[in-house]
């Protein structure tokens, strides 16, 4: 049966050794030489122009500014927790500290691996359900940033109808929807919010296929929406394209999409973007380990710390003084605790 399986039969006799045995000599972070940091990506991996890329940007910044040696690992399709455990273990054994799992699907694996490597700090993005003395839970108040987007959308809308497009119908994206809807309704109780999700798990096309975002946006435009907020990763680019082509307002997500080269043709119609500082959170946890004061427990990035927020790089946006005033007021009220934003619709 072929070369590969013959080789497998050969190597199967060499068992009893675990892949974790390699490189265990340098497992402690206090070892001499440069600090090593690793990130394990979520589905999609690097190049998704969204979540994973933001995490990579944080690692890159740490490499440039802190002299850290970075490592990356991507998941395989259809893997189980056991595969994630194996990946995180090999990264930790190779002496990486911190090891950061991008996305909530790493939670069960990090809980297991963190116990085996008490001296290594583990960053876990978007999850606080699994905690430990050496786990830093990096979480974001996406709903707060989305609330501000809702305020801006309600103010900018002339038709009184705005649209929300979610990439994949998962709890994380529902936080965006909940905040946005609440922001719109609090600003203009008569406004109508059209909501649409592109795909349902385990079909994650809704985060990656721009044509889906485009079709959804066109549908909402037909129904009279004149501001559309898409929280859909790469698929959101399609929504921005459709909205800009129709001459309406688009609201971007995750990073300041007004500045994205790929969307330069449509940037005049990108009103603002809800930013989520994933790269900053990755950088911070690496820096904390380097400084000898590793982060632990829940590290929350909200409006108060500018972990989430609204981008203001579009000059047309900054000219809308009435809108800016409303957004600033809402921001202050959220930070002061006068407004509590819901996390589920």
């Amino acid at each position, binding site marked *: *049966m*072929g*070369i*590969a*399986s013959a*080789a*497998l039969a*050969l*190597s*199967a006799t*060499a*068992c*009893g*050794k*675990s*892949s*974790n*045995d390699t490189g265990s000599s340098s497992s402690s972070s206090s070892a001499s030489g440069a600090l090593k940091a690793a990130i394990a990506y979520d589905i999609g991996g690097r190049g998704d122009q969204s979540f994973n890329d933001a995490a990579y940007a944080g690692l890159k910044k740490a490499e440039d500014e802190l002299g850290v040696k970075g*490592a*990356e*690992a*991507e998941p*395989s*399709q*259809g*893997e*189980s*927790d*056991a*595969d994630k*455990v*194996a*990946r995180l*273990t*090999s*990264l930790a054994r*190779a002496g990486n500290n911190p090891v950061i799992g991008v996305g*909530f*699907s790493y*939670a*069960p694996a990090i809980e297991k691996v963190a116990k085996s490597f008490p001296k290594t700090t583990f960053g876990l993005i*978007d*999850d*606080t*359900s699994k905690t430990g003395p050496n786990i830093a*839970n990096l*979480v974001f108040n996406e709903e707060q940033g989305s609330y501000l987007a809702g305020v801006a959308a309600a103010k900018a809308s002339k038709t009184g109808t705005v649209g929300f497009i979610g990439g994949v*119908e*998962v*709890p*994380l994206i529902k936080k965006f929807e909940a905040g946005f809807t609440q922001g719109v309704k609090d600003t203009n109780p008569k406004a109508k919010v059209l909501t649409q999700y592109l795909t*349902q*798990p*385990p*079909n994650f096309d809704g985060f990656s296929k721009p044509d889906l975002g485009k079709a959804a946006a066109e549908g909402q435009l037909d129904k009279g929406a004149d501001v559309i907020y898409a929280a859909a990763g790469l698929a959101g680019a399609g929504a921005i394209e459709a909205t800009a082509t129709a001459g309406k307002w688009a609201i971007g997500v995750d990073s300041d999409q007004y500045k994205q080269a790929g969307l330069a043709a449509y940037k005049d119609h990108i009103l603002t973007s809800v930013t989520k500082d994933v790269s900053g959170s990755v950088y911070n946890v690496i820096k904390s380990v380097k400084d000898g004061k590793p982060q632990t427990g829940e590290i929350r990035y909200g409006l108060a710390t500018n972990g989430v927020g609204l981008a203001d790089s579009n000059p047309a946006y900054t000219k809308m003084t009435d809108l800016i005033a409303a957004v600033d007021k809402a921001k202050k009220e959220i930070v002061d605790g006068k407004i509590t934003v819901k996390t*589920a619709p």
Partner: protein
Amino acid sequence: MMKIDKDKLIIGAAGPVLALVTSFVLTVLVLLATGLDPIEPIRLMIENAGYSDVQVLIVNYTAILYLAALAVSIGFRMNLFNIGVEGQYRLAAMVSALVGAAVDLPGPLHILVIVLVAVATGALWAGIAGILKTTRGVSEVVSTIMLNAITTSLVAWLILPKNFGVQPAGSNDLTTGQIPESGWFPGIDMGEGGQIYGFTFVALALGVVYWFVINRTRFGFDLRATGESESAAQASGVDAKKMIITAMLISGGLAGLAGMPILLGESHTYSLAFPVGVGFTAITVALLGRNHPVGILFAALLFAFLEKASSSLDIAGYPKEITQIMQGIIVIAVVVSYELVRRYGLRRQQQKVGEELAAGGAIKTDKEVTA
């Protein structure tokens, strides 16, 4: 007799071997074309497979693929193309996880209930395609693909917190709740390597049952006969419609079992992170294994090896996607090489018959000498 069997065996193995060699050569060419060392990633994969934890991953994944591929192959034996194994697997895992978390029974009984629910769900879901085919003439290829899409929506709806789902505090995941410990299938502890799922042995046992049923029972004969020629089977008294429904039910039931190793051995819940794609990989595995329980076992082992041994290639700086390239080429190469081998076998058979006819009465003595 011996001579014919040997010929059959060689011709049977020639297809997969040809496919594997082709895919291996093409993968090396792809690596060369991208300017990478073509041998190093393969050497790394072989080295990885020497580690105990990777071996455990390979064995466990083999069991999952094996069950799913058995499900596909029982359809193939009947000329039924059940593309819906993926959907049957997911729905069965989800529903059985729900039931498993809802009931609390003593150990073995709890596991039995979960397994039976999984089998029933998978069978029911595949049975829909079977009924559509026998009553309305809908191709099972079309209906099972559509049922896959419906599964995605149905599971997404069922797992919403307002229906049956549970969202653990602080998590962005959705689960079906945790199955109590009495519903966990004990595994074999391999120390640092991890745990081999206990259900792996059930999978192997089912392979034996599969072989026995297909080759040694009246039902298996009817199944193969219907697969060869529906009209001929019908003429000899086989109820083809009943066979189609039965085959779909068994196929779906086996597909439902494919989720059990992980559900009972590791995750103990169905969540958004539950592995997907098993049912599609299984189609290739069944093809490569020529629908034979032993062939499928080797094919599943090979695919599990490719998948798991390559998972850390990217840390070493090589694209692990080469595994997908290899698997993709195997699919095409398998189809092509089987056809080539089939034609060659046919020609060889004809030649032989011709030779035998030409030799006339001398065949008998000839045969006795070689035997």
